[in-house]
Each structure stands twice: as C-alpha cells, then as structure tokens.
C-alpha cells in the first residue's frame, strides 16, 4: 500500500532511494552499455580475431550466403563512383607509359603469362576493418616496370582506375618492393569486379586505399602525384601502422 499523495505517475521525480518505485535501472543499463561499447573498442580486435577463427570455418560452409553480412573477417566493398566498374578479361588492357623506354599495353593474357607471385597477407583498411590471411596472386609490379624500362627521370608512379575517377601513387622505391603486385587472383579465384577485377594493384605493406582497384594505366612520373583519398587528407605514404596519424611498428 502506498499513500495516495504518491502519484505513481510522478515516479520519475521522486528520489532514487524509494525502493518501492523500482530501481533506476535505466541509468545503470545506459552506463553499462556505454562501458561495454568502450570495452569492445579496446578488446574488439582480439574478439574479432577470435570470432574469425571460430566462425570462419562455419560461415565458409554457409550455403545461404547470409553469414557474409556478419561483421566477421569480411571485405567492405568501396567504390567512389556511381556504379560498379566492370570489364571483361578479354577486353582488359593495362597501359604503362610516361618516363619509360618502351611504353607497353598489356592484355590480361600478357600479365597471366608472366611469372606469378603469390602472397598471403592481411588486408587492412585505414578506418579499421581488417581481413586476415588473404591470398593474392599476380605479377610483381617490379617485373612490369622491368619490361617497360624506367628512364632515369622516372621517380614515381601514378595509377588510374577504369572507374574514371580513382587515382593512386607510389614512389619508385615503394613500387619495386617484392610485396607490391599487379594482382589478378584473390583467394584462389579470379578477381571479381567487386574486389577491383579483372586486375588491381595490391600494395601489401600499406592501407587498402593504396591498392588501386580496376587498374587501367600506370604512368611513370618524375614526382609523386597524390591520389584520390590523398586529396581528401589521407597520407601519400600509407604504411600500415606508420601513417595517417600513427608511427607504430608495422604489423
């Protein structure tokens, strides 16, 4: 029983100490969920890695494809233009020009005929998402450059995408690394349009935005020309863990 003056509708304005009104669980739940979110930010990487290990084998067998929507070790598809750029393999060409001795246009078959290299590397986006142990197959960019012969004036590379908008850049030294590929296979299958196929750049030691999708031309230039996201504030030298505000040891 409760005295009549205690209007139950006024429960919000009476003190917290009134046990009969029920505890103010809202504040506790509110703060608890905020704390849970903060904990998730701190330990989320470990939890995500664990989930990928545990759930990966299960989702790989999921016939419905619905599990692909779960945020467990999945690629996010980025496209900066209004539609999905697409080009058939037999129509595909890669034009390499600029400060080179023999400007060359490679067909898909030309690239596939060159010595292939396979890398198993994590794919890390600058905003945070990460996909573990992705298998990339392609031609070393260094091999492509050796074919066309970079002149002494050539100091950097400018990449363009057949989406008509995206551009990227690398210094010549970066481009000659062994872990930079002109890639045409992903996880054992042909590179799909969503992932930048039929041919894309893959710059393993840098954030994903450096790995220009739908690669159409490579121009050898005498200086580095910043690319699409770099005009929007991202670092030109996009080393994972050592750029975009950080100077950690490389992952």
């Amino acid at each position, binding site marked *: 029983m409760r005295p009549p003056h205690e209007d*139950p*509708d006024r429960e*919000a304005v009476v003190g917290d100490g009134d046990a009969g009104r029920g505890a103010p669980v809202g504040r506790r739940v509110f703060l608890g969920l905020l704390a849970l979110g903060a904990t*998730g*930010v701190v330990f989320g990487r470990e939890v*995500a890695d664990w989930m990928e290990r545990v759930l990966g084998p299960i989702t790989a067998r999921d016939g419905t494809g619905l599990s692909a*929507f779960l945020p467990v070790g999945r690629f996010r*598809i980025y*496209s900066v233009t209004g539609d999905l750029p697409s080009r058939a393999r037999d129509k595909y060409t890669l034009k390499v020009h600029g400060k080179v001795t023999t400007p060359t246009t490679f067909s898909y078959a030309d690239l596939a005929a060159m010595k292939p290299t396979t890398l198993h590397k994590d794919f890390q986006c600058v905003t945070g*998402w990460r996909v573990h142990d992705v298998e990339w197959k392609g031609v070393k960019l260094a091999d492509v450059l050796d074919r066309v012969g970079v002149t002494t004036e050539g100091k950097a590379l400018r990449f363009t995408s057949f989406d008509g908008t995206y551009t990227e850049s690398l210094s010549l030294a970066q481009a000659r690394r062994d872990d930079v590929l002109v890639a045409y296979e992903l996880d054992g299958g042909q590179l799909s349009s969503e992932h930048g196929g039929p041919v894309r750049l893959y710059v393993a030691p840098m954030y994903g935005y450096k790995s220009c999708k739908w690669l159409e031309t490579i121009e050898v230039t005498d200086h580095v020309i910043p690319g699409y996201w770099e005009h929007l504030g991202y670092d030109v030298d996009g080393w994972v863990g050592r750029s975009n505000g950080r100077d950690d040891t490389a992952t």
Partner: protein
Amino acid sequence: MATVRSDRAPAATDVIERFDPLERAVHWTTAACFVILMATGAVLYIGQLEVIVGNREIVRTIHVYTGLFLAVPLIAGVLLRRGRLLRRDLGRLSRFGPGERSWFRPGEARRAIRLGKFNPGQKVNAMFLGSAIFVMLGTGSIMHWFAPFPDDIRTGATFVHDWWAFGIWISVTGHIFLATNDSEALRGMTRGVVTRAWARSKRPRWYAAVVGDPEDQESS
C-alpha cells in the same frame, strides 16, 4: 498536470494527451536521422548495395553528419524549459515499476501487471537505443577521425560499430513493426493523443494518474 482535453469538440473528449508537441518533434527528427543512418550505413557496409549506389564519399559524408546531429534533438529537448514532459518520460523509461520484470515472462503474472505509461519492452528498447546513440557516436568518431588512434583501436571501434548496428536494426525494425500493429499507440506519437479506452486497458496505471483518480492509482 492532468492534460484532459475537455475543451475540445465532443469526440475529442474521448482522447487524452500522450506525447506533447516537443516530444513528438524530438521523436520524429531522431527517427528521421535513424532512417538516414541505417540506409546510408547499409550502403557503406553491404557490398551489394555499395556497388549499386557507389559514390562512397557522398554517402559517407551524409552518414557522418547525420550521425553527429543524431543526439542533438534529444539533448536540446531535455535542456529546453518546455521539455518537462520529455524529461519526465525519460525518467519513466529508465526504471521498472513493481513487478514489471515479470512482464518478460509469459503467463499469468504478466497479465496481472498494471502498466504505467510505458511497458517494460519499451523501456528496454529506449535504454538500448538511447545508449546506442552515444556508442555509435564514439565509435563512429574514431572511424572517421582515425589519425590519433592505433590500428587495433580502429579495428575495435569498427567491430563495435558493426555489431551495435545489428542491434539497432533489430531494435528499430521491431519498434516500427509493433507501432504499426497498434494504430492507437501509433496515434499517440503522430497526433499526440490516445483514446481513453486504449489508455484504460493498455496503460491503466498511467490513465489513473492522468485522470487523477486516487482509488485507481494503486499498483501492485
């Protein structure tokens, strides 16, 4: 404090005020933000949608600025002098009345509860969505202004943002589904009023308080 609209046309005397104009303005602007955020978020997250819509830079910008604005109507409403009813309703949403926990268990006990203005499901929904606004604001800010944060923190923020988004989708679609299944409850938020009959049967403890019948205010 009773808000009986007895001065209205005869038919209108059958209704009582449930949410005042300020509460409805806060609700609908926040709801519009949620819809925009869920739609743009889906495009940013689901590859199949991204390849149809594209224009990532534009979609991302809409998502970020809508997200930054999301908490503004609620905070402004709470701070405004006219937000008295909103503040009181937030207080109501934040605590369970006597015996209300058994509402979550089906059976006799559930039917015996005389509910106040909100049922316990609405309270849990409000607690989750209310905190989710700030969890998404924090993690989204780390994802957008990532420069000061180590990669592991960015990955953690993305992880939390993604899973919370799933919770928000469940919570919001459930909320819309239940609201559209009860036209009277929905009218409480569109026009601000509900019929006395609805209030008496669905929210008896609240109704008793509004009409000021001390005999009927007892809750058990």
